[in-house]
């Protein structure tokens, strides 16, 4: 699919930059030739794409709403990823089950955040997962990265939220993302809970990682004439 890229040419990053504890690399090493691809220096697999459109961000003056929109951008990414994987149908067994259930959760998170934000919710960007959802091994690796990242992103933002209702909603999603992470790690043969403490990951770093994947291919305000490819 020909994709309009955001903001010039984002640098691709090696897998290990996303790989907090080596679990992804370990998994990749079990994948043979596919693992070679995943470990390669030009690998851009994984974590994803969340660069928030500047326009949407500027329009949000309330700090809490800015945080919720950031969370929404991550949920859009995750929801689209699992929805596409389910639609493509290349997964089977435990992976397919994970994609189906987790996808339904991520779509629910999107709806919950949209509901909290009302008319101030950012719009959904367009995604291109570049075939990752069609390959079970790549799907699995990317899902591990997404879920660990999502958990770390919510963790970094939660203490900044002022509104109690927003905070209560955010922490209840935060722990679900952690469940997802443990789930897909277990499926991947990695330790579901690799550390005694999960560490937060600051927004600029998350957004850089997301941008590096090139999964987000179009700003939601893009003047494309085509419909979004995925609506998860």
């Amino acid at each position, binding site marked *: 699919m020909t994709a309009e890229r955001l903001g010039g040419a984002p640098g691709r990053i090696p897998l290990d930059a996303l790989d907090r504890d080596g679990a992804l690399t370990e998994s990749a090493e079990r994948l043979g030739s596919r693992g070679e691809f995943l470990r390669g220096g030009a690998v851009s697999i994984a974590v994803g794409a969340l660069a928030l459109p500047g326009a949407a961000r500027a329009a949000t003056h309330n700090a809490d709403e800015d945080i919720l929109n950031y969370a929404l951008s991550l949920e859009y990414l995750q929801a689209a990823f699992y929805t596409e994987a389910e639609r493509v149908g290349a997964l089977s067994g435990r992976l397919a089950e994970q994609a189906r*259930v*987790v996808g*339904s*959760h991520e779509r*629910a*998170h999107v709806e*919950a955040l949209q509901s909290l934000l009302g008319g101030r919710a950012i719009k959904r960007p367009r995604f291109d997962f570049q075939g990752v959802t069609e390959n079970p091994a790549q799907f699995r690796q990317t899902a591990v990265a997404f879920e660990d990242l999502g*958990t770390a992103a919510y*963790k970094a933002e*939660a*203490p*900044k939220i002022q509104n*109690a*209702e927003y*905070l*209560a*909603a955010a*922490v*209840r*999603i*935060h*722990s*679900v*993302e*952690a*469940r*997802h*992470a*443990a*789930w897909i790690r*277990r499926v991947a043969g990695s*330790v*579901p*809970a690799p*550390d*005694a*403490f*999960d*560490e*937060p990951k600051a927004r600029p770093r998350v957004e850089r990682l997301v941008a590096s994947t090139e999964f987000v291919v179009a700003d939601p305000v893009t003047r494309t004439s085509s419909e979004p490819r995925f609506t998860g």
Partner: protein
Amino acid sequence: MAFQNRRITIETVGGASQAQPDARDPGAGAEFRRRALFGGAGILIGGILIGGLPRLAVSAPSAAQDTEVLNFALQLERLQEAFYAEAEDSLAATGELSEYIRVVGAHERAHRELIEKALGGDAVPAPELDFGDVFASPESFIDAAVALEETAVAAYNGQATNLTPEALATAARIASVEARHASWARGIAGEAPAPRGSDRAIGAARAQTELAELGLVTG
């Protein structure tokens, strides 16, 4: 040890208005009742409840309230640490279950140590623990582990709005690890690792009730 005299209910941190037990999640109660029949009978832990704390009304976050909430968390972590330590000693676990017990037990110990350190001289005394026969079989153990981790996740979520941002940042580093444990344990038990899109958030009183239903605490 006259611990009984120190026991009061943990409702001191239980009145959280944001804690919305199961109003939106009617299935959770049934889940716990089922588990209580299955896995929990026989565990007896006296004095897990927080003793000697002032009955602060739950209100805007403050350093004093942080202390109270962290003491509640400390007792939860002590309970979990002891639970897994006992499992390691008395359960003939193999394979993934053995790994789960070892890894998660080490996490709970680290959580307890961090919270104890944060509280310093404000930490309440450790409870006396008296486990029963929940470790009789891997099945009864993992059911109890699922229930215990579920309560821990919901309890941490329920306290989020009671904490100052600094204390919340610490608690959140633990809370998601408890959620990973819950997911892992559920997977071992053959259940959906993430049964709902939004996790429960419960107050301390509800947490106490759930642990009591499991036989994990008395009173």
